[in-house]
């Protein structure tokens, strides 16, 4: 099972001379649940963008299951097995909730153009199968009854859930969640953290979770990486992190 270990080392990127992230390293084992925390502007989202090919790193290496991901376009990263959600929600707002999830099955090419145009039995069968699978996922995320609504009409919390559902539909090896609890109330936040750890068990997927609120990640993450000013200032278990004076100073201190 060591096959799909994600490993990054020395990742760095600058924007116009300003180092946003430097020397970033991380190892996530299959089905691991890790946290990435740090104050606002620390470079957490930038790390996700590096990991998903949105930004090309200036230096560093990055592999999934031994395969290098450097130079991959975002769609190639998705195919390779890394899915993500966005801090600023990026759903297909005008499309239905169901279509948002169905989109994630596209790269597996369920049928060809000719099947779609002639409505062949392959089209009928595979399209129905995809819909069943998508509805199943939506049920799990508590969105099945909203499947025909436009995504933009969902509540904020449901939009975040839909983002997770469609990322899961890619059947990733590694799922990146960028502040999935942002904007939720404290009860919803706790529920969501339960959902996150359920997802890990059910889908056998590794998860890297960005969360601004340190207490939330402490509860569920096995290992936590702390980022400040684009650099890792601590890495370890929740307990180690909580006791690390650097973290207390840089992170908890400002709270």
């Amino acid at each position, binding site marked *: 099972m060591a096959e799909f270990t994600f490993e990054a080392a020395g990742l760095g990127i600058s924007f116009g001379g300003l180092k946003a992230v430097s020397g970033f390293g991380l190892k996530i084992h299959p089905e691991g649940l890790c946290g990435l925390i740090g104050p606002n502007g620390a470079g957490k989202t930038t790390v996700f963008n590096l990991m*998903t090919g*949105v930004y090309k790193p200036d230096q560093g290496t990055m592999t999934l299951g031994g395969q290098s991901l450097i130079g991959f*376009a*975002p*769609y190639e*990263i*998705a*195919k390779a097995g890394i*899915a*993500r959600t*966005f801090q600023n929600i*990026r*759903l*297909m*707002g*005008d*499309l239905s909730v169901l*279509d948002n999830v*169905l*989109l*994630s*099955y*596209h*790269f597996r*090419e*369920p*049928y060809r*153009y000719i099947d*779609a*145009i002639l*409505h*062949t*039995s392959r*089209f*009928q069968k595979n*399209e129905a199968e*995809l819909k069943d699978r998508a509805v199943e996922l939506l049920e799990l995320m508590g969105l099945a009854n909203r499947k025909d609504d436009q995504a933009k009409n969902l509540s904020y919390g449901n939009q975040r859930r839909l983002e997770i559902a*469609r*990322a899961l539909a*890619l059947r990733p090896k590694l799922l990146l969640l960028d502040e999935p609890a942002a904007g939720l109330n404290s009860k919803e936040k706790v529920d969501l953290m339960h959902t996150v750890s359920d997802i890990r068990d059910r889908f056998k997927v590794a998860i890297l979770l960005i969360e601004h609120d340190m207490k939330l990640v402490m509860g569920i993450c096995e290992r936590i990486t702390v980022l400040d000013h684009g650099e890792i200032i601590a890495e370890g278990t929740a307990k180690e992190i909580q006791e690390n004076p650097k973290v207390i100073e840089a992170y908890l201190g400002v709270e």
Partner: protein
Amino acid sequence: MKYTQWIIFGLVIGAIWTLGFLFETNLNPYVVRVIVNCGIAMILAMSLNLVNGCAGQFSLGHAGFMGVGAYLSAAITTLLPVAFPQLSFLREPLGIGIAVVVGGFGAGIAGYLVGLPSLRLRGDYLAIVTLGFGEIIRIIFLNVDAVGGPRGLPGIPRESTFFWVYFWAFVTFLFLYRLMKSTYGRAILSIRENEIAAESMGIKVSHYKVVAFVISSFFAGIAGALFAHYQGFIDPATFNFNRSVDVVIMVVLGGMGSLSGALIGGIIVSLLPELLRMILFTMGGLPDTYRMVIFPLILIVLMLVRPVGLLGHKEIWDFFPSFKKKKGVKAHG
């Protein structure tokens, strides 16, 4: 299921044939001409809608691809039989049918060549570059003496009829409708909705932009070929910037991304000027130029009242939920 589909197509095509027969024997030729032009406009609007409405890429060069289809097909049916007498069958209906399809493929290839470099650009930049390519295509026709240069190409067999135009309108509609209801359609729509998210969900955005552009150009070429064989004469000015703008207006008016909206937009943009012409005539023969003032005014008012276009992103049947439900039941049964 598979057979009922073909029976329904047969019935629709039979109905188009019957309508064509009835119209051409009973209506005055002017009215038939307006109806046929409507059909061509509908094909143009539906095809441009794929790029401008569904993929959200603003193309302003549709007339150029229409021109490629028109010139290529006309060259096949008009010039080839002259050069090679043994190819005289190309002036017969079957030959013309082939020429129309070849015109479509030619336009599709042109769409590929234009789309590949220009679809890297976005928004206004893409609009300007496609406009430029549209003009380049027109200027090529203007300078190729074999197809008549500025004099145009006369003597094209006038074999497009109501039947053929509406047959192709039906094919275009069905093709695009089914495309958009498939995984490929979802990929194309995702470009409009959010490129970054689409890429992150495994969609190769640059590829599907080109796919949309090529399919769109193909049907523009078909429309152009039908047009050429309806008019019997084409010249470069027929495919100028104004015609591209007309098609954009059809799409915007009907609602970006709405296939049925494109049909309505096509009808309005073809019919309204004719209606205005009639109204001006009955009002004591006011000059025809008033038409050119009133028409844009109507459009401006419409866009102010309903900026998303008549149907928005929706289809006409979305406004009649009961019909949709019935359709849903049928699809399951």
